[in-house]
C-alpha cells in the first residue's frame, strides 16, 4: 500500500472494495496465513540450523576418535568411587526413617 491510500475503518457505501469489512477480514486472514507460513519456514530453518550444529558437533567428536578409543576403558577408581557414593546414599536412606 502507498502512503496516500486510506486505511479502511468501517464498511459503507462509496468505499473501495478493499475497504469493505469482509475484504478487510479476508486480508487479515491472508496476512495471518502468510505470517503462519513464514513462522513455519523460520522454524524449519531453525531446525535445520540446529541439525547442522548437531552434526558438526558429532563430526568434531569423531575427529577425536583416537582419543575416545584410548579412553574407552573401565576406570576402576571411578567405579569404586561410584559404589562408595551409593553405599553412603544407602546408609543415609536407612538412617532417615530411624530418625
Amino acid at each position, binding site marked *: 500500500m502507498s502512503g496516500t491510500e486510506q486505511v479502511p475503518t468501517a464498511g459503507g457505501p462509496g468505499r473501495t472494495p478493499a475497504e469493505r469489512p469482509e475484504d478487510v477480514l479476508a486480508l487479515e486472514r491472508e496476512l495471518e496465513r502468510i505470517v503462519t507460513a513464514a513462522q513455519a519456514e523460520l522454524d524449519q530453518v531453525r531446525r535445520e540450523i540446529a541439525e547442522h550444529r548437531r552434526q558438526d558437533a558429532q563430526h568434531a567428536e569423531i575427529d577425536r576418535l583416537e582419543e*575416545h578409543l584410548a579412553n574407552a576403558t573401565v576406570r576402576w577408581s571411578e567405579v569404586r568411587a561410584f559404589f562408595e557414593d551409593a553405599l553412603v546414599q544407602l546408609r543415609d536412606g536407612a538412617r532417615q526413617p530411624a530418625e
Partner: protein
Amino acid sequence: MTDVLPQASVTAETSAPAEARRLVSPLERLGLRGRPLATANWLGVAVGVYVLITAVELIGSGFKAATGDSAESLFAFASNPFVALMVGVLFTAAVQSSSTTTSVTVGLVAGGLPIDIAIPMLMGANIGTTLTNTLVSLGMARDKESFRRAFSAATVHDFYNLVAVAIFLPLEMMFGLLERTSSWLAQATSGSDGGVVATVFSGIGSVVDTVTEPLAAGLEGATSFLPDPWHGIVMIVLGIGLILAVINWLGRLLKVLLVGRAAQVLHSSVGRGPISGIASGAAVTMMVQSSSTTTSLMIPLAGSGTFSLKQIYPFTVGANIGTTVTALIAAFAFSGAEATLALQAAFVHLLFNVFAALVVFGLPLLRQLPLRGATWLGDVAATNKLWAAGWVLGVFVGIPALLIGITVLL
C-alpha cells in the same frame, strides 16, 4: 524454538575429564616409527590371529582330553538353559570380552560340548559384554544430567540384549531355531556335501589347521606330563589365557591401525538413518575386534549430549553383529567334523545377533522397548544411584550367581 543440543566438547561436559591420550602400539617400544611400525603392527595382527586359532584348537583338544566321552556329564550342571545362559553372562562379565567367551565356546563345541548347552552360553556372552560400557558410564556419575544420558546409552545395550534373549531363548528351547539354522549353514559351508562354498571353506580350514598344528601340538606336548584329566584342564586354562591375551593384543594393534578408517565410517554415518548406524557399529567393531570398546567409546559422546540415545541404539545393535567375526575366525582352528561343529557354534552367535536385529530392532513395537527401559532406568538412576548399583550387581553378578548356585546345590 527447536532444541539445540549442547555444543560443549565431551571433555568439558563429563565429570571425569578425558585426558588427551593417544593410541599407542605395543610395538612402539621397539623404537619403530612410520611405515616400519605399520608393517610390524600388521605382522603383529597376523601373529595374533595365528595364536588365537591355535589357542582355540588347544581348548578343543584339552576339552576332549579332560572329558573323554563324558563332556555332557561335565557340563551337566549347565544342561538347564538358564544356567548355561548365566555361565555365559558371568564368564563374559568376568573377562569383559564376548569375543573370548565365543572363541572359548567354539573350541569347547569342537571338543564335544553339546551345542544345546553352548547356545545359551553364547547368548549370555551378549549380555555379559554390556557390563563394560555400563561400568564406563558409572564414571560420569558426578554430573547428574551427563550420568542420566550416559547410563541410558549404556543400558540400552543391556535392555536390547535382554529382550533378544527373552525372545530367542524360549524359541530355542521349544523349536531349536538357532540349532537347526546354524547346523544347516555349517553343513552348507563346511560339510562334505556343501558344494563349492564348502570346498573353499574346507580348503582354508585345512591350510589354517596345518599351519597352526605345530604350535598347538607343542603346547599339548609341553603339558602331556600331567595325568588326565589335569592334562586337558591345563590345556583349557592355557587356551583361555592365550585367547584373553591375544584378543587384548589384537584390539590394541587394530585400534592403532584402523582408527582412521573407523573415523571415516563414523563420519559417513552421521546424519543418516538407523540402518547406517547399524552398519557403522558392525564395521567399527569388526575393525577393533571388540564390541566392548565400540560401545564404551560412545558413552562419553552420549553423556555430553553430542549423540542422542536414538543414535547410540542402532550403533550398539551393529556392534553385536560385528563382534561375531571373532568366533568365525576361531572356527578355522578345526578341520573335518570338528570344523562343522565349530562353525555351527560360530554361526549360532552370528545368527542370534542377526535375528535379534531383524526382530527386536526391525519391529517398531519391540524396537521401543530397550529405548523406554533405558530412558526410565537412566532417569531413576540419575536421581538415586542405588538403582544403578542394583542394576549392575543384580544383572551381571547377583542373578547369574544365584541361579547357578541354586542349580548346583539342588
